[in-house]
């Protein structure tokens, strides 16, 4: 080879060869060189930061000085349980996440079913692109688009006017609609993948045995696609639970858990309490993941 690029013997290549030989002889050394940087960053850095914030949740903030008091106490969690306003916000957030997930399932499953079983196979890749493409458009742009559409003289109100109706305006309904819109592709794609793997022969067999389409859907398709549905719901549920930006853009004054965390960091300067509030979505998601694991959904991700 002409374009040898100095890889044959020479002064520096000799050093490089020795290093290569050393790495070849010692796989453990090679492994530790490979792992040290990622582990330092993600375990020591990221997991360390997570642990630190979790510990902070058990501290308090001095009301007068604003300094963090490093003394173990359950006061923050006590406040969360005792104050009705936090219970309301937590339940509201769970409700929003559940509503978004249900809407995405109801809208997404028929679309995934069409893509996987009705559309011509050569059209399928294009439908997948059509669903995937909006994910590349910025989150903020999509939330903003809805803000414009839901405004006073916006498209939604104008379109509903002839029917004597008006749009929901900014508020909790708008939050649910926009979040469902944002996360819909995350529901469609896993369900589509799950349905595409489902052999057509099973559907034919069900039909041959006398089942009507709805019965086939209920007794054959949905049970087999259920893990994929749960996999999709992990995204829609988790992403909705931590959101506070959409709420700020279209949610009016109805706050979610994310807003409570945000406000306690910014305006109230109460990091320990914010950390305590932030443990709620984490605990809920860990429980959700544990439940999803039993359905085999985690292998569908």
């Amino acid at each position, binding site marked *: 080879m002409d374009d040898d690029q100095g890889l044959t013997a020479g002064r520096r290549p000799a050093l490089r060869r020795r290093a290569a030989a050393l790495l070849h002889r010692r796989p453990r050394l090679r492994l530790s060189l490979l792992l040290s940087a*990622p582990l330092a960053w993600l375990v020591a850095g990221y997991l360390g930061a997570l642990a630190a914030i979790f510990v902070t949740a058990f501290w308090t903030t001095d009301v007068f000085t604003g300094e963090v008091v490093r003394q173990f106490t359950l006061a923050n969690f006590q406040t969360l349980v005792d104050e009705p306003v936090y219970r309301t916000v937590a339940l509201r957030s769970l409700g929003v996440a559940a509503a978004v997930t249900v809407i995405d399932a109801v809208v997404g499953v028929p679309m995934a079913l069409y893509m996987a079983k009705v559309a011509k196979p050569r059209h399928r890749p294009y439908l997948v692109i059509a669903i995937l493409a*909006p994910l590349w458009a*910025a989150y*903020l742009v999509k939330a903003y688009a809805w803000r414009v559409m839901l405004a006073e*003289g916006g498209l939604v109100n104008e379109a509903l006017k002839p029917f004597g109706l008006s749009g929901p305006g900014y508020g909790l309904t708008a939050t649910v609609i926009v979040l469902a819109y944002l996360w819909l592709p995350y529901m469609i794609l896993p369900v589509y993948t799950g349905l595409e793997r489902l052999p057509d022969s099973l559907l034919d067999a069900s039909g041959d045995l006398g089942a009507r*389409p709805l019965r086939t859907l209920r007794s054959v398709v949905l049970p087999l696609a259920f893990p994929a549905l749960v996999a999709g719901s992990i995204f829609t549920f988790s992403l909705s639970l*931590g*959101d*506070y930006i959409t709420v700020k853009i279209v949610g009016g004054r109805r706050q979610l858990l994310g807003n409570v965390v945000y406000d306690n960091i910014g305006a109230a300067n109460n990091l320990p309490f914010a950390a305590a509030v932030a443990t709620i979505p984490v605990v809920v998601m860990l429980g959700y993941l544990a439940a999803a694991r039993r359905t085999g959904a985690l292998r569908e991700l």
Partner: protein
Amino acid sequence: MTFSPAARIALRVLMGLGLAVIYVPLLVVLVNSVNADRAFGWPPSGFTGHWWTRAMDNDGARRAVLTSVKAGVGATAAALVLGTLAAFAVARHRFFGREAVSLVVVLPIALPGIVTGIALSNAFQVVLKPLGIGLGLFTVIVGHATFCVVTIYNNVLARLRRTGANLEEASADLGADTFQTFWYVTFPALRSALFAGALLSFALSFDEIIVTTFTAGPGAETLPIWIFNNLFRPNQAPVVNVLAAALIVLSIVPIYLAQRLSSASRGVT
């Protein structure tokens, strides 16, 4: 097929409606960017290119785009190194805790952004502040790289598993040392996976707002933060709308690249 004609038509209609709902908001933004009515009244009273020229001249928006590009490039570079190293360790070695590596890599993106945001912000205050490093572009890059690693890791790991170690062993048998094997055999096989991962990583970083809010100081205003800060100012609305429209148009680039990449890799196998 078991679907009755009626069921097929119903599903087709639902698909059409679904796609319409997905695309109408994006079209509204595009139309509004040339809407002559500054309050975006609907239907538009006329069309103008005035907002686009005004947006091009907006210094804050231009600086924000530049900051976002810097953050995306920095975070992607760090993620490329970390993700590739971790993928090699998992794909080519056996060690205690190997299964846990995937979990640690995916965690920053699986947890709600606000949790990652406050954890990193707190850690930066405690660790970096005494060293004289305040919140700014550097901390944004560190934060973004943390959740971008997973895109590179997944792509590289999938590619390494698919190609196997046979070619690398053949290369070693023919006398190539570890570095030569990497440079002439492994790296070329990884190139498209690295590119796909980098594309996704850059897009994630460019779009991110929650972690950024907590890790950016006053000096580092990325594009999403700039848009968010100006969203509620009525006189900035046309400029915000033009930027949103521009981002929608620009998103065709990664879609096109990703598509070419996946059809190219399908051609190989």
